[in-house]
């Protein structure tokens, strides 16, 4: 295993023929997924960022939005490299479909409709392959009363978010607006809180 990646990293950086560069990109994605290698990511970034920027500029006719597209796409590549499946297509096609999804959402972002369907729901390329299917069944299957004792033991920041969503019935976007924190933070706090609740319930079962 080690010798394979050593061999690959001795190859020169991504240039040259397309198949070479696809192989190299796949290797870099694997390194990012396994070891969070910043070096691997930087190489992948310098290869794809200019192409993504050119795509964004053509699509939006706006440099700033194009840069947002580059940044959001590559942020997903950094965090979700483990979801790239070499048997399903090339690395560049995978990265393109991420950018396509982000473009789809960026084009509709200004309208601010809270229940708007997102590209991830139409093309779930960044969905986790579900190893733990009951991870998310908690919110619908357990009544609030049953978990109120555990609920009090959540960290304040998480409890605040869960309270607004599950008791006051607010959407994640409304919670994000009312607390002045990013939507991603609301979502991750919700997720962490539900996970924590589940652990507490299992612990005390």
């Amino acid at each position, binding site marked *: 295993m080690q010798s394979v990646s050593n061999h690959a990293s001795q190859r020169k950086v991504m240039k040259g023929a*397309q198949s070479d560069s696809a192989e190299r990109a796949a290797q870099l994605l694997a390194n990012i997924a396994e070891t969070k290698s*910043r070096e691997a*990511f*930087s190489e992948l*970034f*310098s290869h*794809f*960022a*200019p*192409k*993504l*920027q*050119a*795509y964004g500029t*053509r699509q939006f006719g706006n440099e700033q939005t194009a*840069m947002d597209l*580059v*940044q959001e796409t*590559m*942020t*997903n590549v*950094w*965090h*979700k490299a483990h979801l790239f499946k070499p048997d*399903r*297509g*090339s690395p*560049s*096609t995978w*990265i*393109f*479909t991420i*950018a*396509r999804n982000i*473009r*789809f959402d960026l084009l*509709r972002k200004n309208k601010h*409709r*809270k*229940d*708007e*369907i997102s*590209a*991830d*729901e*139409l*093309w*779930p390329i*960044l*969905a*986790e392959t*579900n190893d733990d*299917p009951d991870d*998310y*069944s908690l919110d619908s299957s357990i009544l609030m009363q049953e978990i109120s004792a555990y609920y009090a033991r959540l960290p304040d920041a998480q409890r605040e978010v869960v309270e607004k969503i599950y008791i006051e019935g607010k959407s994640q976007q409304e919670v994000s607006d009312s607390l002045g924190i990013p939507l*991603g*933070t609301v*979502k*991750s706090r919700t*997720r962490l809180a539900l996970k924590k609740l589940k652990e507490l319930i299992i612990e005390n079962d």
Partner: protein
Amino acid sequence: MIKAHPSDAMLYQYAAGDLSPALSLVMATHIDMCKHCQQKVSELEERLCEKHLVNESPALANHDCQRMLDAIFASEAPEQIICDQGPAMITLEGKRFHLPATLANNADRIGDWSHMVGKLWRAPLSIGSDDSINLIYMEQGAQVPEHTHRGVEATLVLNGTFNDEFDSYHDGDFILLDASRKHSPQTQMEDCLTLAALDAPLHFTSGISRLLNPFSSLFFR
């Protein structure tokens, strides 16, 4: 065996992300049901990638690169997307229908069923967009008077069979009609559940577009 597919041009627009949310949802659901179009969309995505990402592009300025890399390394992981395990079945009139993956993932967007007229039922999908998308259920022996469409309508058969003047359509069949085509759908021995999206012209206000549905002429003539 699915015989009615979206055109290549429409598959291309779908793969490029250029269709409206409602049409995209119908396309995605057809693609769930259709291996043939799944394959085509993968190929189109490759072609689009070659078109959009493979050309040589000028490098970004160094300070832009560094700024973005720093921001990315410092970023919090985006929330995990778990495909909802929600109900993959819906029940109507005592019958249970299996929902393809994309619809199952969006099952929480399916509104209440209402009785339209005759043997027709409808449940709107709330997708936060101006165009309208509905599940339409036709009981056995249902008939929809001849009508035309305002704008483009895409209909996908989820389960069952319906006919019009042109053909009969079964599970997975995808039908696109524009304003120039008159048709009168009907069911015979079998009932039929469809997903139908209407690309509402921009001049409809959202209140009215809510009322638009594949059989809108029933209500508006």
